[in-house]
């Protein structure tokens, strides 16, 4: 299989969708002439024209609302919000319109749209540009949330997002764009709600999504040196969530650690821990542990930022405490 970066994998899927379906169009801040903040749509406006790849004003709320309306009107929009930080300005549109229209209208309206956004910290961008709010979106019924980790995930999950007739929030960790992985040339859909056992193990289950899977992988490598075999799960989507794969792994390992960049208090890791408790309490040899971001606004200074983010060494320390 050829190796592609996460970014190239996204580009490949987006381009295929634009070619395959006249009703697909892309819309967002700086996605056209500029080529996208993270260069995902570079060159697309030249190839597909300004009617299919549309530069918008910096007006997040109307960008998302316009996407919703276009979907109601028979198109299939892909809206890019540059980053999850700016998505907060469109939060009302996502929460009150995109996610609820099908239900509120008694099933008359549907909103087939993909909302892409970059997420995550680690580049010293300080408090307002470093959010990991995947869990906030996963909280909302009526939408789906995809959180790819590998380039393979990025390619396959994005294809599935375009097949789905509901709003899909597609979140890309900025640290992943340049990472490489094997991706088949031919198109494939990666089903939502199916986690990947990214690394097999028998002693502890490390559960991550998006960028935090990488921290789990590094931790698992360190643990392996001490003879501890960690199983690493890559969730791929948070809603729907593949709780079955999580429970199956816990049945084998009897210990679980949930890892996420987001703030610990009230976060999605707590939801996973609760589900494990509800569905596999008797399988547990230790309480489910969490390794999360610190409950602080993200600081700028490198040492402080790193201290606020889950590190492989934190995961290793927590695992040792469980075994």
């Amino acid at each position: 299989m050829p190796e592609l970066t996460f970014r190239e994998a996204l580009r490949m899927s987006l381009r295929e969708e634009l070619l395959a379906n006249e009703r697909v169009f892309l819309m967002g801040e700086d996605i056209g002439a500029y080529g996208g903040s993270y260069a995902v749509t570079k060159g697309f406006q030249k190839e597909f024209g300004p009617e299919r790849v549309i530069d918008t004003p910096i007006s997040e709320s109307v960008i998302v609302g316009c996407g919703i309306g276009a979907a109601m009107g028979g198109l299939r929009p892909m809206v890019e919000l540059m980053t999850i930080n700016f998505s907060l300005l469109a939060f009302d549109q996502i929460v009150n319109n995109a996610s609820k229209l099908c239900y509120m209208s008694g099933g008359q309206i549907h909103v087939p749209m993909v909302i892409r956004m970059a997420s995550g910290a680690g580049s010293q961008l300080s408090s307002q540009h470093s959010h990991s709010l995947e869990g906030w979106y996963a909280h909302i019924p009526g939408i789906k949330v995809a959180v790819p980790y590998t380039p393979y995930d990025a390619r396959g999950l994005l294809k599935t997002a375009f097949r789905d007739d509901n709003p899909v929030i597609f979140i890309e960790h900025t640290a992943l764009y340049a990472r490489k992985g094997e991706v088949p040339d031919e198109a494939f859909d990666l089903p939502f709600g199916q986690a990947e056992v990214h690394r097999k193990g028998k002693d502890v289950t490390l559960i991550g999504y998006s960028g935090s899977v990488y921290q789990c992988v590094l931790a698992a490598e360190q643990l392996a040196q001490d003879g501890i075999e960690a199983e690493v799960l890559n969730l791929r989507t948070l809603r729907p969530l593949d709780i079955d794969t999580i429970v199956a792994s816990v049945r084998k390992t009897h210990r679980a650690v949930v890892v996420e960049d987001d703030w610990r208090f009230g976060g999605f890791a707590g939801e996973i821990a609760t589900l494990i408790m509800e569905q596999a309490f008797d399988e547990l040899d230790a309480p489910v542990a969490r390794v999360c971001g610190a409950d602080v606004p993200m600081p700028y200074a490198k040492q402080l930022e790193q201290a606020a983010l889950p590190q492989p060494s934190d995961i290793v320390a927590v695992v040792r405490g469980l075994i």
Partner: protein
Amino acid sequence: MTQIADKPKVEELSKEQRIELLRQMLLIRRFEEKAAEMYAKRKIAGFLHLYTGEEAVGVGAIAALNDDDHILTHYRDHGHALARGVEPGRIMAELFGKATGVSLGRGGSMHLFDTSRSFMGGYAIVAGHLPLACGLALANMRLRNGRIVLCVFGDGAVNEGEFHEALNLASVWKLPIIFLCENNFFGMGTDIRYVSAVIEVYKRAQAYAIPAEQIDGMNVLEMYDATQRAADHLRAGYGPYFLEAITYRFRGHSMADPELYRDKGELEEWRRLDPITQFRSQLETQGVIDEPAVAQLQSEIEDVVNEAVRFAEESPDPQVESLYDHVYWQGDSHDA
């Protein structure tokens, strides 16, 4: 419900068409009275915002549109739904929270939807539906289907960011949207003069290079005429148009409103401009309709509204087992 089939100029409206406008306003007036009665009897719960006093705005505007033009409106939406021909019984059933309601009992008063009539919903976050109008208009433009969008909102919406974002986008992309502001001078219970730097709302649209005018929202024919002018502008490809309809609601913001913020004398002044009384006397003076004919109309409307209540009362409650239905789309893909 009979729809005005073709869209003649206002001065060329036939007798029947003018009577139809009166009939629609009378229907809305009576429907709202009945809804208030049913609310008092606790048949209707939640918020109930009545359109009483503002009938000419919705009736005049919607009559000037084609039947497949999209309508998006705010939470005071019964009048617009009725004017678009949504079945009164299914609206009442929605207010009653019944399984036969237009939104299957999931929306209630503030969220009436009937996509079969291109009635794309009532929305209850102030100004939150203006961005959707941009998208619907963009889709119509792209699909070259000739449809335009009527987006109705109140004066309370004009201080929301989404109002400005939507007007800017609509103007810069030349989206075929009629922005119709129903200016009744109060954002819930706050006088527009205390919270708006520019109280002549249409001037705000001019800041976005959108042609805009202020019209008498108590005059159904003026509403018809202005909306037709706006629609012609859109259909010629010139982009959006903005109408500010000056109107007044004769009842509280919602049924929960004790109306401490406004002067009873002011209300009486406006009642003298009652859009129905005005139009009715105009038609009587012109010999289009006489007293017995109006009585006949009212009696027919009484039957329609009573039938709507009967339908709502006798309709089944939603099955609790259906709670999770329609959280996600269950139908066909529209781009399959």
